[in-house]
């Protein structure tokens, strides 16, 4: 009997591992590398490098932001796939895990911020942009501090990240 329980337990492990997979990452993996979509993944190693940049204060500030960051991913569809992109994304995110945080309307653009919380921690931070061109998805994974995240915009100096500064207005 004991042997059967152990075998059943071992067989269940892959199922649990699969259950742990983030819905957001599944969405990203589904479209990344597919014809009609452009994706970018900035790895944890890159943030490790950035921590070592600049003067002591800048380095300290950046360290606060990125210490627990596991990566940034971006995804955008071409014109043929844009119509349902954001609807598909929102449908893929379970409502009991992902919460709308803020919606900003900036001219023709709508910028939406969504969070995934696990206990006291924010483990995923999503920003979507729609209007004026193709819709755009950006998300951060790790242990995310909302108070620090707007600093990413200034520090990384990547075009498009300026929308993160809208979090300061919250």
């Amino acid at each position: 009997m004991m042997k059967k329980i152990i075998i059943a337990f071992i067989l269940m492990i892959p199922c649990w591992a699969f259950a742990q997979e983030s819905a957001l990452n599944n969405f990203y993996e589904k479209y990344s590398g597919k014809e009609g979509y452009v994706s970018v993944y900035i790895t944890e190693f890159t943030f490790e490098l950035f921590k070592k940049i600049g003067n002591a204060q800048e380095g300290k500030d950046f360290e606060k932001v990125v210490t627990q960051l596991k990566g940034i991913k971006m995804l955008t569809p071409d014109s043929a796939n844009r119509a349902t992109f954001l609807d598909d994304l929102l449908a893929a995110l379970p409502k009991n895990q992902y919460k709308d945080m803020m919606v900003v309307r900036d001219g023709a653009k709508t910028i939406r911020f969504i969070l995934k919380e696990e206990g006291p921690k924010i483990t995923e931070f999503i920003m979507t942009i729609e209007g004026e061109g193709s819709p755009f998805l950006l998300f951060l994974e790790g242990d995310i501090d909302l108070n620090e995240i707007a600093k990413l915009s200034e520090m990384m100096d990547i075009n498009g990240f300026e929308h993160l500064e809208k979090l300061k207005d919250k």
Partner: protein
Amino acid sequence: MRTMTILLTLQLFCATGLFAWQDYDQFYNEHKNETGVLSFRIPTDLLKVFVDEDEDLDGILNKVDQVSFFISDERAVELMKDLRANLSEGTYKDMIEMKDGGSTIRLKAKEAADGLEELIISVEDEDSLFVLCVKGVFSFEDARRFTKSINTERMREQAK
């Protein structure tokens, strides 16, 4: 007897390739003369003639020791596998991966004591492989400039 055992064990490790040093140069030198492969190295001085130094690149070119190109449109899949095997995770760290349909662009870096000593940009397609290797002494600030080349607004425009 003990010495013999140690020697035999060491020989076994070497034979299985566990001690083999793998890096980009090994890949480049192994395949550079193969049919269907175009490979060349550009001296830094010549590179300066071709590249306009703008604000972002200002100073970086002076830190470049060597630039090499590797282009193949034959046996690309086989070469990609070999390239990945030579750019082991322990030595070459992934910085950025960009996918545009079936094309994948990767930026990998080899870390030195106080910066980076090698940057490798590969563009993989289902039937072609392009690799650019830049060697030199780069600061972490230089690495940040490389990421600055990512323009999300341009991504959206490109997708239009």
